[in-house]
């Protein structure tokens, strides 16, 4: 009886030791990815620097759209004078890469931060802010619903458009955009709405929207106009197989 008790004690002691060992290993194997801090005294410097970059960016983007329009006019003149150019082929290629305006029915999504949230400061709660990943999920879902063209705050989204965040700033086509984010998509509004209303496809957005952490709404629209892409194209590393 006494030996049985000792055995049981030894076994339970060994088991406890094993569990302790496992927990210790688990604890020390857990790697926390490195994050950065956001010191308060950087905020003002950041604001000033950003403003100068963003002013230049807006000017350059509107200049690009202006130059593309001027080029189009000049190309039409050339076409009337020679048969060596095929503007139809050029237009077709432009449509494929987002360099033509797309109009038609579609849907408008508005997603915004919580009214109590601020994107500036030291104590920022991620849950109260729209994240770049929320916008990427929405754009992916719109593409899956076969939207013909998409824009965010009037910026045309193409396949190569990065939607990223650095801290609390959201960059689309590497340009800074601020909330509220208005996402327009031209396409079959019925099928797009069906997907948007499916909470299982956008679990994080619906969960936070229901808790009042972010604001989210989608409406069908009879007419929307999606502008041309106003960024740069790089193809210097691409060669066509002849």
């Amino acid at each position, binding site marked *: 009886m006494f030996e049985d008790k000792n055995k049981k004690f030894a076994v339970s002691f060994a088991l*406890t030791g094993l569990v302790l060992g496992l927990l210790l290993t688990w*604890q020390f194997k857990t790697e926390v990815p490195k994050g950065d801090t956001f010191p308060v005294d950087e905020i003002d410097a950041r604001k000033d620097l950003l403003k100068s970059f963003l002013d230049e960016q807006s000017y350059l983007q509107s200049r690009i759209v202006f130059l593309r329009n001027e080029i189009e006019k000049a190309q039409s003149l050339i076409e009337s004078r020679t048969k060596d150019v095929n503007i139809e082929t050029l237009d077709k290629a432009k449509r*494929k890469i987002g360099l033509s305006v797309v109009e038609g029915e579609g849907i408008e999504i508005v997603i915004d931060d919580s009214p109590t949230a601020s994107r500036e400061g030291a104590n920022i709660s991620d849950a109260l802010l729209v994240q770049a990943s929320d916008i990427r999920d929405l754009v992916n879902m719109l593409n899956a619903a076969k939207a013909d063209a998409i824009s965010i705050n009037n910026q045309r989204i193409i396949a190569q458009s990065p939607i990223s965040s*650095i*801290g609390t700033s959201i*960059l689309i086509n590497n340009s800074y955009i601020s909330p509220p984010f208005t996402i327009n998509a031209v396409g079959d509004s019925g099928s797009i709405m069906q997907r948007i209303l499916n909470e299982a496809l956008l679990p994080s957005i619906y969960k936070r929207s229901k808790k009042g952490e972010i604001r989210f709404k989608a409406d069908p629209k009879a007419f929307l106009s999606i502008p041309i892409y106003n960024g740069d194209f790089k193809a210097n590393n*691409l060669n066509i*197989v002849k």
Partner: protein
Amino acid sequence: MINKRKIYILVISIILGSFIIIESRSFDAVNDIILRDSKSDVFKEIKVLKEENQNLRDETEELENSLSSLSNQDSAVKAIQDEIEKYNKLSGDYIVYGPGISISINGKITSPWMVDLINELFHAGSQAVNINGIRITNESSGFDTLPKGQIYLNGTILSPPYVFNAIGEAITLQNALSASGGIFDRIRASFGGISISIDQKDVLEMK
């Protein structure tokens, strides 16, 4: 003897309880950090904007040159042909080749992470990207998740290993993706037991 045992058990229980609490707090901390987006970095933000402004200045200069070449009929024809060729390279209608990287992910990941990885590839300067041979273009459908959890793209179910090819500056792409706290670290932290390999390629071909 019994008293000693009771003390041992009490001490061990306290240690065990403390470890369980530390462990659970540590996991909460990890979950808070494994966000799909990177954390704040003022210098990175400025670097991205500076580079983008330079790209926009280059694009403006290129367009100004195109516009001036349209004033002469001979150079205009060449300028239009060059423009068509550039757009054709990007459209996905033609087979293209160039230097780049090939990434292989062995293990199951979910479609939001695929979206994120492709986003990072374009953000890092990729000029063409495909996944398991399917090129991502303006005409690609988005990633869908089927009821059994499979990932569906352009009418095809994607299965591991997921191979992402990207044409662009290979070193720049590799450095951007492999950075500490970058997309690879975040994928590894979210999916245990996954292996990710990356190779630089002198020539990649993409349909």
